[in-house]
């Protein structure tokens, strides 16, 4: 079967930058990029499905390296299915769920459970991240090799950092031998202890215990030092502050194999969003100051921060409509990330091509995936409507989570259609 996406502008970083071409998809794979007026020499038996994407931008499918799907264990917050629906609605063709489920994804059975569920759903690709240590306890290594065979693509301590440097060192050495990247949730728990927002003026005024930048940056520095020691590939998750950006910039300059991500809330909001004890502005690491926000944007611009991930963390109102210090950390992000990130393009901080690098190409490289829009590759394609003005409204979310601080934000641009392996898995209703 053939599909022809007509009329879209193609932005495929490194290959095509803004040319108008039609994309021909055959049996789930990209067959060719052709001139708009070119007739296909298809045989009579081929049925050609045409998608009129005039006015849209076609990019390689977006990849989110950092999500929480809550299944198994906390299905009341999100399931693999609702998370996947939110993902494709947000333009993501691949997502990587973190291991802090219940049970923890620290063994091949849980990995297989997630992978099988994802396959049966047939929405986006779901590539699980395994736990660094068994039960996220920080003591003994999980069976990375076994999990990798079932489809695990990286290891992480997200949600519960490995405090012991020797354990982290061994994890890096072992993972490196298997070709797996290590995703570090860099947080010194002894410094972050009891804190529930950024340590600073707003926290002082509100009387909320703070989490200093140093709780993050000291661990970022540790991970870079350990990456240099072991030669492993380390990816720093959700960078929120200036000192971490500086440390990563320095590490890259030394030739350490370190990559890093930030999330839209860190370049969009500051800790002032907490001002009315808004638990929807509570996440870990916390929203920082304007100075940090600018440093995050600078890090994206100069390439220190390689990717934009969401840290999509759905919670139910049970965890959010409570006292601030008792509320759960985390916000949803899959259905707001693209629009918020496109703001960087509208503000001319990044070109669209560079944004797509950070939301698709660079995460693909970390995962070792080739997702160029070229013949032979799977047709994982996101079609973006760049002119779609809309107001963020959690009532429209496909995710079970409505915990977002972006309610009522007026934004421009969103996914119009998402294709995975040539199949339309999301199409915006008109």
């Amino acid at each position, binding site marked *: 079967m053939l599909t022809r996406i007509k009329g879209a502008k193609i932005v495929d970083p490194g290959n095509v930058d803004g040319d108008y071409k039609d994309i021909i998809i055959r049996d789930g794979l990209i067959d060719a990029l052709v001139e708009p007026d070119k007739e296909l020499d298809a045989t009579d038996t081929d049925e050609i499905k045409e998608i009129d994407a005039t006015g849209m931008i076609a990019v390689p499918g977006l990849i989110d390296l950092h999500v929480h799907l809550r299944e198994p264990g906390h299905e009341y917050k999100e399931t693999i299915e609702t998370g996947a629906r939110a993902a494709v609605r947000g333009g993501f063709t691949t997502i990587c769920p973190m291991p802090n489920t219940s049970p923890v994804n620290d063994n091949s059975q849980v990995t297989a459970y997630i992978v099988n569920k994802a396959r049966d759903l047939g929405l986006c690709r779901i590539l699980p991240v395994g736990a660094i240590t068994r039960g996220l306890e920080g003591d003994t290594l999980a069976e990375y090799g076994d999990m990798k065979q079932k489809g695990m693509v990286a290891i992480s301590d997200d949600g519960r950092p490995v405090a012991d440097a020797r354990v982290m060192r061994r994890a890096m050495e072992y993972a490196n031998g298997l070709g797996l990247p290590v995703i570090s949730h860099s947080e010194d728990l002894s410094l972050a202890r009891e804190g529930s927002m950024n340590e*600073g*003026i707003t*926290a*002082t*005024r509100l*009387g*909320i215990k703070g989490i200093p930048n140093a709780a993050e940056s000291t661990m970022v520095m540790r991970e870079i030092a350990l990456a240099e020691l072991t030669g492993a590939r380390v990816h720093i998750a959700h960078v929120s502050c200036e000192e971490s950006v500086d440390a990563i910039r320095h590490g890259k300059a030394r030739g350490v194999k370190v990559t890093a991500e930030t999330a839209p809330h860190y370049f969009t909001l500051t800790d002032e969003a907490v001002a009315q*004890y808004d638990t929807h502005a509570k996440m870990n690491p916390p929203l920082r100051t304007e100075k940090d926000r600018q440093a995050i944007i600078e890090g994206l611009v100069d390439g220190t921060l390689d990717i934009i991930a969401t840290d999509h963390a759905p919670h139910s109102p049970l965890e959010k409509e409570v*006292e601030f*210090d008792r509320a759960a950390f985390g916000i949803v992000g899959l259905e707001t990330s693209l629009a918020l990130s496109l703001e960087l393009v509208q503000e001319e901080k990044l070109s669209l091509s560079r944004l797509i690098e950070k939301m698709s190409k660079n995460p693909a490289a970390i995962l070792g995936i080739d997702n160029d829009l070229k013949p032979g590759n799977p047709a994982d394609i996101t079609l973006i409507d760049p002119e779609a003005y809309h107001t963020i409204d959690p009532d429209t979310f496909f995710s079970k989570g409505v915990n977002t601080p972006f309610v009522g934000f007026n934004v421009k641009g969103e996914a119009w259609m998402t294709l995975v392996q040539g199949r339309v898995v999301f199409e915006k209703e008109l």
Partner: protein
Amino acid sequence: MRFEHKDLLDISSLSPQDITMILDTAEGMKEINKRPVKKVPTLRGKTIVLFFQEPSTRTKLSFDIAAKRLSADVISISTGSSSIVKGETLIDTVKNLESMSPDIIVMRHSSSGAAQLIARKLAPSVVNAGDGLHAHPTQSLLDMMTVREKKGKIEGLKIAIIGDIAHSRVARSNINGFTKMGATVNVTAPGTMIPKGIETLGCHVAPDIESCVEDADVVMMLRIQKERQENILFPSEREYASLFGLTRERLARARMDAIVMHPGPMNRGVEIANIVADGERSVILEQVTNGVALRMAVFYLVAGGKKYADKD
């Protein structure tokens, strides 16, 4: 002019005029407490719930007496007797209280922002009796009342606050209140007890207690919480007393007519020397006396303020 607030949540949402009105009303209430029959019918038929989720003796008693002297019916529940221990959420608990139609809910809670959280959800007036490290507005108002009574004014005075500013809701509310009324506030404490950016609330941070109390009209000591030692805030009570305790010698640096305050309960011999606590400049017990009148005023005003608010 009338009091337009449904709730009393913190000092920062009050204007200087609001504060003056509360203090004036409290002065009027004070006389009632000196009568042989200490009761007026002002709030007869009103129900006030005292909902304390943190241990408290004097504040709770003060609110209780204040409500009874205005003839309100008072019901008191605390953590041990509430459903919170059974796993009910705070909002569910107060929504249940609301269903029994109280007029005012007085809440103390260990989480900053808890009073705001429930006030947003409830029709009855909410009076914050202390929320986490955030605010303790009635304490601050009774402190301002006491200072105004002793000094005849607040504007232009120099106030010294010494102690664990970082973990004190009394300090936050008082820095807010006194600066709002035109006083200068100096604070000091060990570095571990000065939170980041405290100057943005309008106070100055002094390097030591000597310079903090220099020429002060009011010296306010905060309680050092011994249990905080596990947070590694100071090496020992002994060292704290020697560096930051209010002694007679240190008090001598303040103005001749300076008064000494403490929100209680005191650690005698730690943050305040015995002789200073019991000295002629100490107004610590008068603070407690004023607390009742001040809380009567707050009940009276929010009950009226709510009534007015209903008309809108």
